[in-house]
């Protein structure tokens, strides 16, 4: 099963689609969580997800705003989509009936 950070990364990469790469994913995750995402955590998680076969990465084209350096482009695989879906379902099921779940009864 995915970890929380892995799920957030997959969700961000899926949202970004063809524009998913290191800096963009990082920004998307920071917006979603309101927390800073370190480059170390991002890149080691990318490697882990790639090793598990949940994403594929390739080096993209260099751009001037990046000082002529290439991007590490990220593509989520079918297996990655399945894992993310399972994680989401599990979290949704686990959250049913708890106080913070939207639309549920308050059961402190």
């Amino acid at each position, binding site marked *: 099963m995915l970890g929380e950070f892995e799920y957030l990364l997959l969700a961000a990469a899926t949202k970004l689609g063809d524009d998913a790469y290191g800096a963009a994913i990082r920004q998307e995750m920071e917006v979603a969580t309101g927390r800073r995402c370190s480059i*170390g955590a991002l890149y080691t998680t990318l490697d882990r997800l790639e090793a598990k076969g949940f994403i594929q990465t390739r080096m993209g084209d*260099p751009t001037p705003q990046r000082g002529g350096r290439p991007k590490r482009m990220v593509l989520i695989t079918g297996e990655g989509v399945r894992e993310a879906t399972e994680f989401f379902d599990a979290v949704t099921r686990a959250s049913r009936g708890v106080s913070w779940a939207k639309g549920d009864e308050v059961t402190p």
Partner: protein
Amino acid sequence: MNGHGMTWWLVEVFSRMLARDERDAVRGDIAESGEGGWQALRDVLGLVVRRQAALWKGWRPWLGFAALAVPLGMELGRASLRTAHTSSIYIWMYANNWDWSLFRYAGFRHDLIYYAATYALAYLTLACSAWASGFALGWLSRSAIPLNAGMFCLTVMLAKSPLAPFRDMPGGGNAPGICAGVLSHRVSMDRAGNLGSAPRALGNAIGVEGEDGMIARFALFVVLTGMAAGAERAVLQPAGQRKAAPEFALKDSSGKTVTLKKLRGKVVLLDFWATWCHGCKEEIPWFADFQRRYGKQGLQVVGVSLDDEGWKVVKPFLGQTDVPYRIILGNEPTAKQYGIENMPDTYLIDRQGRIAAAYIGLVDKDDVEANLKAILKQR
């Protein structure tokens, strides 16, 4: 250099500890996000620490540490102390009793030349030993060089400690030995194939006799080990983890455009070379041999010349050399995409256009051949 400049310099230094692709991607991300120097340094350091920590899960860094860094560091430290101790006596003696009139005596001149030559060779031997130790260590676990280099230097310096085993000589440490050790790590990491000064240093070292002869023999052993181990080997990436090789469209000597895309379905040995590069010229007969023997199985060797003078120098060279494979003229964008900083650099690209192995520096011919055979079998 002000604080701001120093921070970015540190970012540059630490990011060099990352793999080439990752370094480019991370530095690009930092540039794009507009981070300040300290934030960038924190990010790069965080990633470097994580990468280094992950490396120590494997056996190679531990073997390098236990079998090379500690024993060689200890031996170098001891040899440094011994050399420093004996040489300092003579240096002190000559410095404090110096009298130009003594040059009249043949015995004085003879002794001065003898001791100066003896200790110059001893110091050279030490530097040579340190270089070779670092080279062997760097080869064993290239990625773990920063940590093992630190451990190695620590061990060398610990030889000065009163608690160090076999510490039988008083006196100061030997800076050239230690510095050369650190330097050799760096050199072996960057360019395994361009270390032509080693044989000369080795030759000098062999000439040392007496107590220092022990150091020379030690240096001989370590240098040979280091040199034998020094040629570049590469780990064949599992098919699932390979990354696409950057595309290129470059012209050959007849003006025809060669693209990587057109070579899909073939295994490509991509060699970045130049006519002035000694290591590159050494590899050309090996690659020619591969092209002849494995061409029918789907191998295509492609030589990308990065000579600034272009065909003006490449064509005459090809006229004198037997090169049975395609040579194209490279350019800066292509070199940058492949992260070429020095040469030779060689990439083995599988039939799907993905990088299966990368060699930085002079290749180990047998290792390339073994990897080529494995890739040619893959469909």
